[in-house]
């Protein structure tokens, strides 16, 4: 067994152990203190609930995943394009950075009802909110990454008459990739939050909608089941980005094998 596989397995064992510990404490607390079902259901009720209507959970989970991933993709693409413009022109930097700061300072939750008015109760407003939640972190980190290129590298580019496009694609962008991935890790979690916020305020789909409906009928096990599913989804999405990072920037210091000892 290679060190890498052993590392992974021991990491997985830790995660499982922590989850089991949480479940035990949860179960013990519910039994010991006699907490009523509608406040905190025992964990077996939550899991039973999850498997009692798998189609419902699956359908709504799929909707939330699609919204979060769609919003994330838009945020990353738009964010990187904006960053390129910001890095290439002082004027564009002033314009976009001001606009982004203004947009970011508005709580997106406050905007969510307006998006329903503008875009209806379907997929689009949720996508827009998810993307808006995540875009600023992408821009800020990507700009920082593209700016922090070693000036000597740019001198090298100048003495070899590199075109502006080559400098962008062959120096600035790869140099910024570590920061871009750091931003993407934050962005994926933010777009899940955005998706849920969107589902809270309008529409009939998604785990956010399931939670709101369950709350209305004091169906706490169902709400908990949706939250549990949501946290599993968010974690899985986060680790997908981590995995992509190891695939795309194997050369970065954070990805290199750790020295022994």
């Amino acid at each position: 067994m290679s060190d890498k596989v052993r590392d992974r397995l021991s990491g997985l064992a830790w995660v499982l152990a922590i989850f089991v510990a949480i479940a035990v404490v949860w179960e013990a607390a519910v039994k010991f203190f006699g907490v009523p079902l509608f406040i905190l259901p025992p964990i077996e009720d939550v899991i039973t609930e999850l498997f009692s209507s798998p189609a419902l959970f699956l359908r709504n989970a799929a909707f939330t995943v699609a919204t979060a991933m769609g919003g994330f993709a838009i945020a990353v693409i738009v964010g990187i394009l904006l960053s390129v413009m910001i890095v290439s022109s002082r004027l564009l930097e002033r314009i976009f950075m001001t606009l982004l700061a203004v947009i970011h300072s508005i709580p997106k939750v406050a905007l969510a009802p307006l998006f329903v008015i503008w875009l209806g109760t379907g997929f689009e407003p949720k996508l827009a909110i998810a993307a808006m939640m995540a875009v600023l972190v992408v821009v800020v980190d990507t700009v920082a990454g593209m700016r922090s290129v070693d000036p000597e590298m740019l001198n090298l580019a100048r003495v070899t008459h590199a075109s502006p496009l080559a400098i962008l694609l062959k120096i600035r962008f790869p140099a910024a990739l570590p920061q871009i991935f750091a931003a993407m890790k934050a962005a994926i979690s933010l777009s899940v939050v955005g998706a849920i916020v969107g589902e809270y305020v309008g529409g009939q789909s998604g785990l956010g909608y399931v939670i709101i409906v369950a709350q209305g009928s004091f169906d706490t096990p169902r709400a908990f089941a949706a939250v549990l599913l949501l946290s599993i989804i968010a974690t899985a999405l986060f680790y997908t980005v981590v995995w992509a990072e190891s695939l795309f920037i194997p050369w970065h210091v954070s990805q290199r094998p750790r020295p022994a000892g």
Partner: protein
Amino acid sequence: MADVLSPALQDRPAPDKVPDVHISIRNVEKVYRSQRGSVVALENVSLDVAKGEFVSILGPSGCGKSTLLKCIAGLEPLSGGEIFVGRQRVAEPPKDLGVVFQRDILFDWRTTLDNVLVTVEFLGLKRRDYEARARSLLATYGLAGYENRYPWELSGGQRQRVAICRAMVHDPQFLLMDEPFGALDALTRDELNLELQNRWFADRKTIIFITHGISEAVFLSDRVIVMGRNPGRIIADVKIDLPRPRGVAVRDTAAFTAYTGRLRAIMDDANAGITHAGVLS
């Protein structure tokens, strides 16, 4: 191109009249202006380097030798004077130039071979035409088998060798080297000096080599130019008359130590001149 020279220069021949001159630096001034006043980095620097000559520029830190290199490379505009590479007046980085910087600045995301070929890509040349040359260059620098390694898998000496290959892959006739071995340990530095000397002896590029190492400068050069600081200027031009190719043993000869002793004395005097401004000038 008609050369319009300043009156002070009219007694000196234009570069195209002297067939052997490759780089001609004439009355170069460089002043950095900021809100806190201006700093004279280079004052009246003039120097001719012949085709195929190995010239070291030796000086303490802050003497403007790196600034001079950036001016020759076309990376810094001049405040006065002119620089010719061949018949071309330097306004932007000259073509047919290779630069080795102080740090290796390899791209972490490229393999060794791709790092060498980045010059070719940036110059807009075809990778295919230069891949064989890149591989053979790497081989001459003892890096055969390392083509697909990433920079972090290489030692400091290997990394700087890759940087040298990157500067030479398009076969420029002129190389600028800015303290390329300054960050390396003494043993690796000696090795690289020997390699560079042998390589230069084989293909006779024109090289301007910036350093603060006296022994390194004498070992490598045909001529050592000594610079002083405050302001940065040339204070001595010493021809090194030692037989080529030189081996490591040349360092133990009386002639070699005579040169290093003389250069050290010049530099010490110049340093003393800082505390007693005006005494030496």
